[in-house]
Every structure is written in structure tokens, then in C-alpha cells.
């Protein structure tokens, strides 16, 4: 699915204390593209991701996912959109500690299918955790936890995958493995992947890099020959 942002503003607060997290952003992200959004803290990366994910509302401008304009979408439609269209991967994994790996994924898989246990097992196997199904998050390493989070995001087979600093909490080796996994599912499932990071090196594996500063896109470049994730160094 393609994503289109046209003069998108996101403002927090009002009057003199208003903060423009995004200031008239324009961007076109075609379907199936692996896009890395770079920028320092406070540049508006996560805000942009949240707006595309439908968990936050634009202040002005148009944000279209395929033909659906997210601007002014009703609450129910927004829920339906999140349920059917996007999957999230977070920096801090945000797994539910009282659920096993399988249950964490099944929780989300159930939203789109009656009994999601089979699908949950399938995606966990896909991310290489077939032998960790009954492990609770506290029993998993950071990399494994992030793989569960990716599996959870993939469980609904969303056309768009939104990843917010997915390697921020991981060591270099594990981070690289996670990026490999994300690239793999992007290619295999033809999912549109938007990955937010402050790590510029990761941009080298992307089809496209958007660099944000103070709420505006200051660089929009395409990689003619993106490298494989395993070749990344930082």
C-alpha cells in the first residue's frame, strides 16, 4: 500500500507554547518500499510514524493510505484501519509480560481471524522462534523479544509495517539480525516498511531515506543499490 503525505502539520499545544512536531510535510511512499526515516531526537520521526499508523491525528493537511484519507477519520474507522492495515514494532518491544510469546502474537492474530493460535505459531516460526513459543518475555533475550514483537506485527499480515527504533535497545549483532528479518519480510510479503531510527548507517539498507529536522523533511534520497542488512556496520 502506498502512503501519501500532503502539507501535513502536527502541532502540540496552543498559542505561544505550541510545538510543531511536523511542519507541512510532503512525501509519497510507494507500495512495497522499505523507507528509513532518519533524524535527531525531536525531529518528528515518531510523530510521522504515529500519524501514518493512525494512532495520532494530523492537525492539518492530508494523509492518504492508498485511497483512504486518515485526516478526520472517525474513531471506529481508525480502529478498523489499524486492525487491517498497519503493524507496529516498537523500540521497547512493548510485549505483555504476563503472556507467552505465542499468546502475545495470538492476541493480535485473533483480531483478524477467529482462532489466531495457528497463525501466531506460523509467524513465530517465520521469525525463528519456533522453539520459544511458550516462553514469557522475561525468559527471552532482547533480540528474541523484538522478534516476537515483529511476529506480532506480522500476525495480521498488514500491508504496512511501522517500526520505531526497532534496534534501539539491541546490541549491534542482534540489531543487524532484526534488520535482516525486517528486510526479509518486506521482500517476501511485499509490505511497505517505514523504519524510524536515529542511526544513519541503517539508511544504507533502505530503498529510500527521508531525513527530518525540526518537523520538516530536509533530505529525500533513493538508494540505487541498497546493501544487505548483514553488511551494515555502526
Amino acid at each position, binding site marked *: 500500500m502506498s502512503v501519501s503525505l500532503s502539507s501535513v502539520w502536527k502541532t502540540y499545544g496552543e498559542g505561544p507554547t505550541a510545538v510543531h512536531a511536523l511542519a507541512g510535510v510532503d512525501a509519497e511512499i510507494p507500495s512495497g518500499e522499505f523507507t528509513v526515516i532518519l533524524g535527531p531526537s525531536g525531529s518528528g520521526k515518531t*510523530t510521522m510514524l*504515529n500519524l501514518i*499508523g493512525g*494512532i*495520532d491525528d494530523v492537525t492539518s493537511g492530508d494523509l492518504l493510505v492508498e485511497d483512504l484519507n486518515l485526516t478526520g477519520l472517525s*474513531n*471506529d474507522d481508525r*480502529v*478498523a484501519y*489499524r*486492525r*487491517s492495515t*498497519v*503493524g*507496529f514494532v*516498537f*523500540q*521497547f*518491544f*512493548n*510485549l*505483555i*509480560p*504476563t*503472556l507467552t510469546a505465542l*499468546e*502475545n502474537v*495470538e*492476541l*493480535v492474530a*485473533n*483480531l483478524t481471524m477467529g482462532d489466531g493460535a495457528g497463525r501466531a505459531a506460523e509467524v513465530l516460526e517465520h521469525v525463528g522462534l519456533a522453539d520459544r513459543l511458550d516462553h514469557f*518475555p*522475561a525468559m527471552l533475550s532482547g533480540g528474541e*523479544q523484538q522478534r516476537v514483537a515483529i511476529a*506480532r506485527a506480522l500476525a*495480521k499480515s498488514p500491508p504496512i509495517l511501522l517500526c*520505531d527504533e526497532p534496534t534501539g*535497545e539491541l546490541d549491534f549483532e542482534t540489531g543487524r539480525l532484526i534488520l535482516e528479518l525486517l528486510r526479509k519480510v518486506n521482500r517476501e510479503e511485499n509490505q511497505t516498511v517505514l523504519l524510524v531510527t536515529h542511526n544513519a548507517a541503517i539508511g544504507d539498507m533502505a530503498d529510500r531515506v527521508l531525513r527530518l529536522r525540526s518537523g520538516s523533511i530536509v533530505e529525500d534520497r533513493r538508494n540505487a543499490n541498497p546493501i544487505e542488512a548483514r553488511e551494515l556496520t555502526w
Partner: protein
Amino acid sequence: MTPLRHKLLRDIRAQRAQFIAVIVTIFLGVTLFAASYDSYQNLAASYESTFTEFRFANVTMAGGDVAGFAEIARQQPGVESVELRTVGDVPLQVGDLKLLGRVVGMPLDTQPAVNQLRITEGAYLTANEPGTALVEEHMADHFSLAPGGTFEVLSPSGWQTVTVGGVASSPEYIWPARDRQELITSPDNFGVAFVGESLAQEIVGTDRPTEAIVYYVDGEDDQALTELLLAEAAAGGATVSFARDDQPSNAALSEDLKGFEELAVFFPMLFLAAAAMATYVMIGRLVHAQRPQIGVLLANGFTRRQVLGHYLGYGVIPGLIGAIPGAVAGVVLARIITGFYTEMLSVPSTLIRFYPTTLLAGVVFGLVASVLAVISPALLASRIAPAEAMRGSAPAGGGRASILERIVPRLRRLPVPWRMALRGIERNPRRTLFTVLGVVLSLTLVLVSWGMLDTIVNLMDKQFVQIQQEDATVHFAGPVGTGDVLALEEIPGVAAAESVLQSPVVLVGDDRYESLLTTFDSGTAMHRFFGEDGKELPLPDDGLFLGNAMKDILGVEEGDAVQLSVSGYTTEARVAGFINEPLGTAAYASRDYVEAVVGTALPATSALIRYDEGAVVGDVRAELVDLEGVAAFEDANALYDTAQKFMIFFYVFVGVMLLFGGAMAFALIFSAMSVNIAERTREVATLLAVGTERRQISRMITAENMMVALFGIPLGLGFGYLAAKQAMASFESDLFAFDLYIRPSTFVISALAILVVALLSQWPGLRAIGHLDIAKIVKERSL
């Protein structure tokens, strides 16, 4: 089971200690409700069934033209049966003991149409054996009287032996009270015997019945008919007339029922409020801690309703786990209590029923309390903006100096841990408020229970130690002169004897009131009088002292005149003042005053005795009982001792309530403290990381929590006092004056007990600090 349900159950398991505390509190609240409410229903049904089965009189009229009253009653539609009978208080002797008992006339061979008996031993009275008697169960139990046994009764022709034909219980004497002014009796001082009507007339010394009793169609209450009959009785000169509700035994039982009703509302409400508060604090914290999880759920497409439903589950589950067994336990307990109670009182007909509505109501109350408690946090969870939730949560509370520090700037020089403790109190005002409320509720529960005990102990002390000064009462077979009374002082061991004349009296002001007029010697040393302000007053020679309740009933003030009818003689008397007595509402006058009003010298019907110090009571008693003309002997201490024996129930009750109060305080304070500690795990870990000693951190948290608990103490004492006052006021009537009295030591001990509980309830949380794994906390930050 869905993963969300797994999460719910595992979250509960993870915080099992707090949930168990809440569940136990709900369990106790629902158990108390179901037990007391079903006991109330069972007892009310048992009394009602007894009244119908044994045709308990709707109206009783005594004195005056009772045959005329009966005739009027028979003519009224709605009246099913009318009986005339003879009732008289006469001396009885059982073994060596002489007491002022009562004989009640009954038809022979067939039960009367009104106020029937249940024969528990032997057989009903027959014409073949007209000299036999049925002994009321309480008397029979106390003196071990059985069919074939004998006792003496004093008739105008002297003592005569009566054979026990059987043992009976009566709806009139379920609670064996002599009259409304003398509700508390001891079997040593009062007993009832049912005899054939002609024998009753012979014993009492009358040739016609003295009482008319009326039973309505199906025993149904008919207010208008009752008012009509009582008005006729008053106009016809009845000295004692009352409706079923005011019948002495029934009036006493009603007070008791009121107690159960009170118990069924007040205490459960307290427990459920406590459970709700603990749940609210706990789930509020849970939602706060799970903000990122909620964000994930919402971001992944869960609806707000699903999230709301999920968090409501945290109320539903403990609510059901606490309420269902609580309701079942309460219903079972009610059966035990009713059985025990009706057996103790010898209620002729005991009905123990299963009331499904109580079971259902108990479950609903428990569930509603816990669900109401989670509604607010659950709504909050469902309304969280997912993007905001994803950002994680800011530490609770703002960073600024505490109010105390702002008021007293010097406090800012306190060591840092103390400043942290002070600021911690304001950090989460809601949690602080609930901890304070927890202390207030716990203290209320303890003070209401303990206050009841103190009040009753004080009431007994006031009546039997401060007011009644006599050691014994001697009843004469007939009226005697005051000289005969003084002669009693010659008996070894008797220090003083005073004349007393007691007569039923009708006082009329705006309304009428039937009571007892007791005439003492002027300047009596046997009875003390205390005014409304508690100050002792001398017995006046220029008017009557009336019990406080009569002020409102008769609508009179000090100095007003009231109409006084005594022994068929009607006159006007001046109200010299009102006195405060815990038991009954009586009238008192000095012999000089009454003699001046009636214009003749009065005899004495009994004498009040005080023993010499060191006198052997048994010997004095034997001497007095052997005197000719002495019909009965009442030991003042026997009644007090009986009352004291009953106190054991109150001690058990208060003990249980203290235990419950302690458990509730523990549950509440433990929940609040756990949340307090959980909320600051990260900062505690940081403090530990920078080298602060665990002991120092524990001290800081303890200081903060104890300051909050201390703040709740005066509020709890005040609120508890008011609640106890309210609880006692609901028992107030002309029969009992329950002026709340709580000993200062009760306040102190209750406050200390709650503080100790508060201190102990921190232990699990502080212990958890001791086991904090700093590295793990850092890792869990992401979860």
C-alpha cells in the same frame, strides 16, 4: 481462553497478595451482610410464625372494666377472638428461693383463643387436675422444674403448693420481661406460671378477670382498630394497655431485630467501601503501569470497548471470588445464628429458611462494589491516546516542595530522606487520600463495635452501681406500715431499710403514657437521680421526677402539671424535673409529696435493703425470707450478674469486629503501601544503585506511610465517634436510653492498634525492596 483473559488472570496472579486482601475484604463484607440479613429475616419470620401459630394478642388491656373492653372488642369487625383472663404478680417460692413471679389464668382442657402455649414437656391443663401449673420454659430451665415437681405460690389464704403439670413456652414471654419498665429480668427475680383461670383468681385474690386480650382476623395488623381499642381502654380506666408492638417481650425482641438489621447494613457497607477503595487504588496503579500495553492494544486495532471490558475484569473477578463464597458462608452462618438464638430464647416456632434473594443480593453487592471501583481506571485505560501511551509514563507527581515545607521553610533543612518522605505524601494525593480513608474506615469499624460495648458496660454500671443503691428488695405479702420496714434494720447484717411503694400509673399530658410510679422515702439513700446534664439531683418534695423520654411523649416541661391516675385515683401532679436513666422511663416521687397530694399516709409494698459491710449475704437473705409477711426477695446483684454473663457475647462480638477491623485496615493499608512502593520501584532502584542503604530507603518509606496513617487517626477517631453515636441512636426508645459512652482508653488503644496494623502492613512491601533486582528493573523498563 483468549490471550487477553490469560493476561487478566496472570496479572491477578502476579499481584495475588493485593488481590487476596481485596477478596478477603469483599468476602467479609458479603458474609456479614448475608449472615445478619438472613438472621434478621429468619428471626422476624420465626417471631411472625410464632405470633400466628400461637395467636399472639394484637391488643392487651388490663385494669378498669376489662369485661366492658372485651365486649367492645367483640363487636368490632376485624376482631376474631377475645379472651378474659386473670394475670397477677405474686410471690413464688421455688426451693429456698422466693421471687416475685407471675401467674396467668388459662382455660382448662382447651387452649385459649388468644396467646396459646406450646407445651414442651408434660400436658396441657385439665379439669381433672385443676391445681397443676404449666411453668414457663425459662423458669423451668433455671430451676430444673419438670412435670411432677412442685413450687409454692402465695395466695391471700397463704402459701400453697402447686404441682408442675408441664413446661410451656409462650409468645408473650419469648423474652421474659415483667413489663415495659422492667425489660431486663433474672430468672431469680421473675418467672411465669400458667394455671387454671379459677386458681389464678384465687391466687391473685380477685373474683373477676383482670385482663382482656384481643386477636384480630388472621392476626393481621389493623392500626385503626388498635387505636380505637386503646382509646376505649384509656377512657375506661385501663392502667396497662398496649398493642402487639409494645408488648414487653415483643418490644425487647424488636430492639434485638433492629440490631441485626443495623448489622446487615452498616458493617457490610464499611467492608465493601474498603474493598472498593483498595481495588480502586490497585487497579488505578495497574492501568498506570500498563499504559504502554494499552497503547499496543489500541495501536493494533483493539476497540476502546474491548480495553474497557478487559480492565473491568479486574473488578469482576475478585468481586465474584469474594462475593460468591461470602454469600454462601453468610447464608450458612445465618442458619447457625438463628438456630442458636431461637434455642437460647426458646422461641416456640423457629423458621430457618433459604432466601435466594439474600444470596443473590450478597453476590450483587460484592460485585457492584468491586466493579464500581474499577470503572474509573478502566475508563481511563480505554480513553488513553495510543500515541501518548506509547511514549511511556512520566513519574507520578510534580517535583516541588511539600506544603509543610512551604509553610515551615525550616523543614527544608531536614535531611534529604525526610524531605523525600514529606514530598512523597503529596506526590499522589489520591493514594494518600485513600490511605487516610482506609485508616478512617478501619477506626470507624473498631470504634462502633467497641463503643457499643463501652456504652453497654457504662449503662449497666450507671443503672446498677450509680443509680440503684440497694443490695436487695424485699416484697411484702400485703401493704405494710413504714414502721414494719424500719424494723427490718434490727436484723443482723441489715444496715438500712427504706419503704417503697410501687404502683402502675397512667400519666396524661398532651398524650398518655403508662408507667410505674415508685415512691421513695424523702432523702432516699437507695436510689440516686441524675438530670439530663448528668448532675445528681435530690428527690423533690414538690413534684414528680419523670424519665426523660416522657418529656416528648407527654409534651410537658419542668413545672407543668400532668394528670396522674394510680390505683383508680386520679389527681394532678407537678413535674419537678426530668431524669436520665438508661433502663425504662419511670416516674418517681417522695413519700411526703404523694402523701400530701392524696391526703393520707401511704403503706409500703416493698423495702429496699442495704447490707452491713462484711455481712454474710446468704444468712441475711435467709433471715429476711423467713420473716412473716415477706413474700419475695430480690437480689439486686443477681440481675447485674446475669447481665454481666451476657456481656461475654458482646466481648466476643467486639473481639471479632476488632479482628475484622484489623483485617480491613491491613487490606487497605497494605494495598495503598504496595502501590506506593510499586510506583517508585525505579527510583528506589536508582537510590540503591547510587549506594543508599536498603534500610535507609525502608525507613524513608515507612516514615511517609506512617505520617499519612497518623493524619488519618484523628479523623478516624472523630468519624468513628459520630458513626457510633448514630448506631446507638438507632436503638434509642423509651425502653432504653443508649447514651454513647466511649472510654478514653478505647480511643487510645484503637488508634494504637490501627497504627500497629499500618506498620505491619508495610512489611511485605519493604521486604520486596530488600529483594529488588536492580538489573532486572532496568530490563523491565521496556516491558
